């Protein structure tokens, strides 16, 4: 009994102990002892939660062959309360188990007169911290394994593929509580179940026998692009909006205040907080109204379909964004700037872009085609494509001692031409420069009224560096926008010209804002502080006015992306980071038992890595597909993994329970078994097989 290795092998996934986490198989001990008082009646006292916390337990006279359903029936009669009791069930406190099998007798459960039973609803409110930092209050199932509870929550929130998420005990925030708790806004979803049948949904999830009918009720058929239960009232719609629209960038102070892991070891600590998927909430000490975090746990995101995955995508983005801001995952400065630019873009677009799901792609095509045609024609009739006639200063090379010379510039299609003066602009230009494929960089200092456009123009001999100095902001914005479009081969007639100008203006505006005011108006569209787009490290490294041009620089490459594309792009870059997907666990290897030196195990979607804490280097990599089997010795809390080629590792985990490590590995293997053909149905059983382990006991 005590040493019960859960033995798995991949990919065969064979399991020595069949695990049925939901089932409550009677223990042999209790069975035998309960046989004697057979027909005698005895008193069973049950506390009914609905009578109030101080009410005395209800006492029933029962015999051991009474089944649980009968107990409940008599209990309800006795309370004299008329209400819907369908969600209620009996919780056996000493044994930490629910008596969900109503046909089982008390004897079978092994219940005696000394049992402390609690009759209470299975669904209770829970405060759920979302990846976007917002707290939601909703009913969650306390009686089913966390995995199923999670499925219910995700269904309610309209997040597909709940297997990728899990619940996390939050970090203690005792210090913050004083000032924060009062102000924190909590979105309340607790009323949903009663009115709309989502409860039934949750219900049906917890009871396999109630499936078919309710399932179609709960299927996310959309009203106005949202699940039915969100379309009920404006309040609910607001909640859905919160779920599906990205949050504005947080104020830099907020970011700075948050806990940031300083090292890999710190990062390892967070992973000790994951809840056990195979046990229910209440068994893990979670009580009504407790706070939990909902997070993506397995970084193998399957089949993201922007059309259906609005909430999922948004929340995933939020989690990614925070992991960047809090330096949970390391990135280079260039990457940080790009992340910043994308965040800026996303927040802008998400605030302005109404969700247009209706218009067909074909019509869009046509519209844009027509639009461009119109513009083209405008351009040809009124020469819009060369509408910019401006006097600009020009300096071919930075090193030239001569300063800027004034010329008359003309922008035509993707080229600029310059002339000595406006009068000569009818004739041959001094030079014509095609900007296609060139690099455009800003060099702007609002305070000094310096508006420079730096052009790196490719030529067979190399890159020509050219500076254009504009006279004012307006001119700069126009020319900058034109240069950018031209570098991408688009002419001024392109429809994106105006929006490009606008975004340049707004970026200039950001530079103009006084640094002292930035904390107070973080969410205001016009004054997004660029510090709120990067991790606190860069707050110190750069002043706002240094940071802004850098982000603007990166921004020009993403400025034309749609919201979905921008989100996807953000996630792609995030996933391309070398450290992406690593969950760290500190462990001790047996080999070095004596040394007591902690090492860090990184668990990635496809491999395990061992990290040397001293250097921070990856010392060893083991891939799952080379893994033959892994065992958990639940007794001494040790894991042993065997790889092909006679590689064995054994370790005990320090910062997390071995169940968590076990679940991580099993979970990732489960993720890799998903395939398109069977993606519709979640193979719950397999998940539990792979992650449940010791529940077999």
């Amino acid at each position, binding site marked *: 009994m005590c040493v019960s290795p859960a033995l798995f092998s991949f990919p065969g996934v064979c399991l020595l102990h069949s695990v049925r986490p939901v089932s409550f198989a009677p223990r042999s001990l209790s069975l035998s002892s309960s046989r004697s008082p057979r027909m005698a009646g005895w008193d069973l006292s049950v506390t009914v939660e609905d009578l109030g916390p101080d009410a005395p337990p209800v006492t029933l006279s029962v015999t051991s062959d009474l089944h649980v359903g009968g107990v409940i029936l008599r209990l309800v009669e006795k309370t004299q309360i008329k209400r819907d009791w369908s969600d209620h069930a009996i919780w056996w406190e000493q044994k930490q188990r629910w008596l969900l099998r109503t046909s089982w007798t008390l004897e079978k459960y092994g219940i005696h007169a000394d049992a402390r039973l609690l009759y209470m609803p299975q669904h209770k409110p829970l405060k759920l911290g979302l990846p976007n930092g917002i707290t939601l209050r909703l009913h969650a199932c306390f009686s089913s394994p966390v995995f199923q509870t999670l499925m219910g929550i995700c269904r309610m929130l309209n997040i597909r593929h709940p297997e990728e998420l899990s619940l996390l005990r939050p970090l203690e925030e005792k210090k913050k509580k004083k000032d924060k708790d009062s102000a924190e806004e909590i979105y309340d979803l607790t009323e949903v179940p009663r009115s709309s049948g989502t409860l039934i949904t949750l219900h049906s999830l917890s009871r396999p026998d109630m499936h078919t009918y309710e399932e179609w009720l709960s299927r996310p058929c959309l009203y106005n692009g949202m699940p039915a239960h969100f379309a009920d009232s404006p309040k609910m719609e607001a909640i859905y909006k919160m779920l599906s629209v990205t949050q504005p960038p947080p104020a830099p102070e907020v970011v700075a205040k948050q806990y940031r892991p300083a090292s890999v070891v710190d990062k390892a600590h967070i992973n000790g907080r994951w809840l056990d998927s195979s046990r229910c909430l209440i068994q893990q000490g979670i009580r009504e109204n407790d706070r939990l975090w909902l997070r993506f746990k397995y970084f193998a995101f399957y089949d993201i379909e922007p059309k259906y995955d609005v909430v999922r995508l948004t929340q995933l983005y939020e989690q990614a964004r925070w992991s960047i801001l809090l330096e949970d995952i390391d990135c280079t400065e260039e990457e940080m700037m790009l992340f910043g630019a994308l965040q800026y873009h996303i927040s802008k677009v998400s605030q302005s872009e109404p969700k247009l799901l209706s218009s067909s792609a074909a019509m869009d095509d*046509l519209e844009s085609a*027509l639009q461009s*045609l119109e513009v083209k024609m405008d351009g040809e009739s009124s020469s819009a494509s060369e509408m910019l006639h401006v006097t600009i200063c020009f300096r071919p090379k930075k090193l030239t001692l001569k300063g800027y010379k004034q010329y008359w510039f003309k922008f035509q299609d993707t080229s600029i031409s310059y002339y000595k003066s406006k009068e000569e602009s009818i004739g041959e230009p001094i030079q014509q420069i095609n900007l296609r494929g060139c690099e455009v960089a800003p060099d702007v200092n609002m305070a000094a009224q310096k508006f420079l456009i730096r052009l790196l123009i490719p030529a067979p001999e*190399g890159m020509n560096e050219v500076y254009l100095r504009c006279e004012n902001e307006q001119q700069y914005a126009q020319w900058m926008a034109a240069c950018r479009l031209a570098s991408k081969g688009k002419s001024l007639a392109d429809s994106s010209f105006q929006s490009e100008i606008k975004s340049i203006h707004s970026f200039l505006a950001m530079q103009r804002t006084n640094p002292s005011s930035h904390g107070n108006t973080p969410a205001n569209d016009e004054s997004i502080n660029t510090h709120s787009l990067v991790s606190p490290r860069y707050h110190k490294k750069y002043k706002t006015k240094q940071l802004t041009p850098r982000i603007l620089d990166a921004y020009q490459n993403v400025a034309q992306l749609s919201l979905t594309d921008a989100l996807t792009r953000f996630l792609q870059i995030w996933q*391309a*980071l070398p450290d992406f997907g690593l969950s760290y666990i500190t462990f001790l290897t047996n080999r070095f038992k004596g040394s007591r030196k902690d090492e860090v195990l990184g668990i990635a979607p496809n491999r395990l890595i061992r990290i040397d804490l001293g250097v921070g280097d990856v010392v060893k990599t083991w891939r799952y597909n*080379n893994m033959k089997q892994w065992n958990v010795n639940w007794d001494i809390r040790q894991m042993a993994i065997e790889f092909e080629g006679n590689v064995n590792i054994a370790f005990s985990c320090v910062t997390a329970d071995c169940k968590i490590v076990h679940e991580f590995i099993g979970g990732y293997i489960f993720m890799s078994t998903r395939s398109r053909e069977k993606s519709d149905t979640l193979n719950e059983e397999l998940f539990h097989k792979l992650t449940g382990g010791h529940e077999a006991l």
Partner: protein
Amino acid sequence: MCVSPCKRICVSSFHAFPDMTCQLSRRPRPSNENSLPPRSTDHNKLIDTPQNLDSGQLETRESNSKSDLSAVSMSDICLLLQMDDIDAMFSDLLGEMDLLTQSLEQETAAPTSLPTTTTTTTNNNKEVNFSIFTDLNESLHELEDTDLDALMADLVADLNATEEKLAAEIQGLKVPSPPPPDLPPPPKGLSAHHPASPASPAGSTGSNVSTPASSSASSPLPPPPPQSTKPTKEEIEAQMKADKIKLALEKLKEAKVKKLVVKVLLNDGSSKTLMVDERQNVREVLDNLFEKTHCDCNVDWSLCETNPELQLERAFEDHENLVEPLLAWTRDSENKILFKERGEKYEVFKNPQTFYLWKKDNKALKAIKDKDKEILIKENFCGTSAIVPDLEAVLHLKEDGKKSWRQRLFQLRASGIYYVPKGKTKSSRDLVCFLQFDNVNVYYGKDFKGKYKAPTDFCFLLKHPQIQKDSQYIKYLCCDDACTMNLWVTGIRIAKYGASLYENFKTAEKRAAVSSVWTNRSAPSCSNPSTPSPTIKVSTTFVHFLFMMRYLLSSLSPQDVGGVPPPPPPPPPLPSTSTFPPSPPEPVFAPPPPPLAAKSSPKPAFPQQHPPPNFPLPPPPAMDFPPPPPLPPIADHSEAPPDFLPPPPPSFGSLSPLPPLPGKSLPPPPPPCFRRMDQSLPPPPPDPGFLPPPPPPPAPTAAPSAAVRPSGSVRKMPPPPPKRTTPTLPAGGGGGGGGEGGGGDFMSELMKAMQKKRSVP
């Protein structure tokens, strides 16, 4: 012989466009030179005529069309587009265009089967295209604008073409016999060796050229639409409107398509010439080359660009457009394009472990199983984004502008190449960005040890594709061994291109699989092909792009000249006819759709259609028969000279035929078509479709000639005899001699031809 003229032409045309660099063929051919002088003169004349024609066309169009379009200026049209009238206008235009295309389709379909027919059809197609875009020729350099013009010209030309076609057909009926006799001579004069080859190339090129236009037109405007469109006028369905506008826009786009003629020199000293369209990606070009070279089509075949000045080489990725990088070459560039096998191209998909598990020792890597490879590929390429192998190595960097090489610890990330600054850790936050991939490509360096005193010869470099000469903006990196170099270059490619590399690989794999099956079958069938094929296989191709033209231009030259010439050549040389089948099919259908489809489709068509051809024209039919074996022709084609033939021949051939047979040439093309139509009806079951069209066909046949003029003449030539299908013929005669010389001004030549035609009537 034929080949050389083609080259000439290309060259000359090239000069017309300063942007383009061209390489002359290494072996100049005397015969060509002789022909040159006359042509050049012709060019100038020709140029003027088209313009005149244009105006004339416009006027005619006014009278004919129900809508007010003709009177409307370009800008007005824009306005109109927004109004309800647009429907009526478009439906009118499109209806008429439909008629035209219908007829064309019929013709084209029938011709493909028979060599003679094919030539005529190609002529027609070419002519149509030509006509559509003639006005564009005037502004070769301004590719961006003139959309509207093109649209107008397009529409107008089509209308005129249909009208003229009818007239021309009538004429053609009357004068069927003359053309055949005349035609043969020109080819002979050109080259005794390859009479057939020129024809075949012409046909192929013509088809290629025409494909875009014809395909687009035909697909959107199948026979049914024309009828439907007119009724719909009143209904004004939104959808119809949308379709039409789209169609119009597509046409606008096509008008802007750039084309390059690329001369391909093979490794063994021979060469192939291809017409590359701006929209074609490297994959399509490779497929074309497979077709021409009969190589084994394995996934390693690549198109590589070399720059002798910088001593670098890069394989184009299959999804890249070929034309764009070629445009970056300087005029005097000695750059070449190679067609060769490069094992490292897709090595990452064959042995992913060497890239993703490079840290492991060789033993472990060798032991890796196929299944593990699959998993690696899936992991790294099938996710939301491709995963870049995390490479880290000490590389030698050539410092900007200095001769020395300096070692640094570099890391590759998806976002770029970074290095670890001195005294810092390797953590991400400390890395310094060396370079990002947005604007650069990665190239292999050759013999840098000698040139730059690099520590080893395993160098790669990163530069903006436009940079063609040594510059401080080129980053040179040197690795300790070949393995590291391949690791890095491949890693950079993955970072730059991501999952599209894998897509490319899958496509290439499919292609290789299919082709192997196909080649097995085909090889046995044709005895002739076998001999040519071996040579081809050996060949690596050098492609020089000879000239770049607009879509129109390219189409024009081949059409004018090519259209006419093809017919003549077929009669004399049997082999030439054979060539037709292979080449035409590809072009006629979709150019991109890989060769396989094209080949398969054309072959079946042959047998069926052949019978009908016999009837019509005694000479051509006879000729046709030999070709029936599709493969042999291909083989001929593939043989050394033929390579050029495809693209250039058309232009060349067209030129030559045009001058000599101005008056007579016109009639010939139409008659064959006509006859086919009539006669073909009974025998060929597949053709039945044609039968109904027959009425329209006459129009189309006339149309081609008309089309040619309209494009050229759209503006100024009002009355000029639309019936003069002959223009093509005359053009061919004239072109034969001076085609090469005319290279400088295709346009002018065309114009000249046009004028002659007119005078003839």
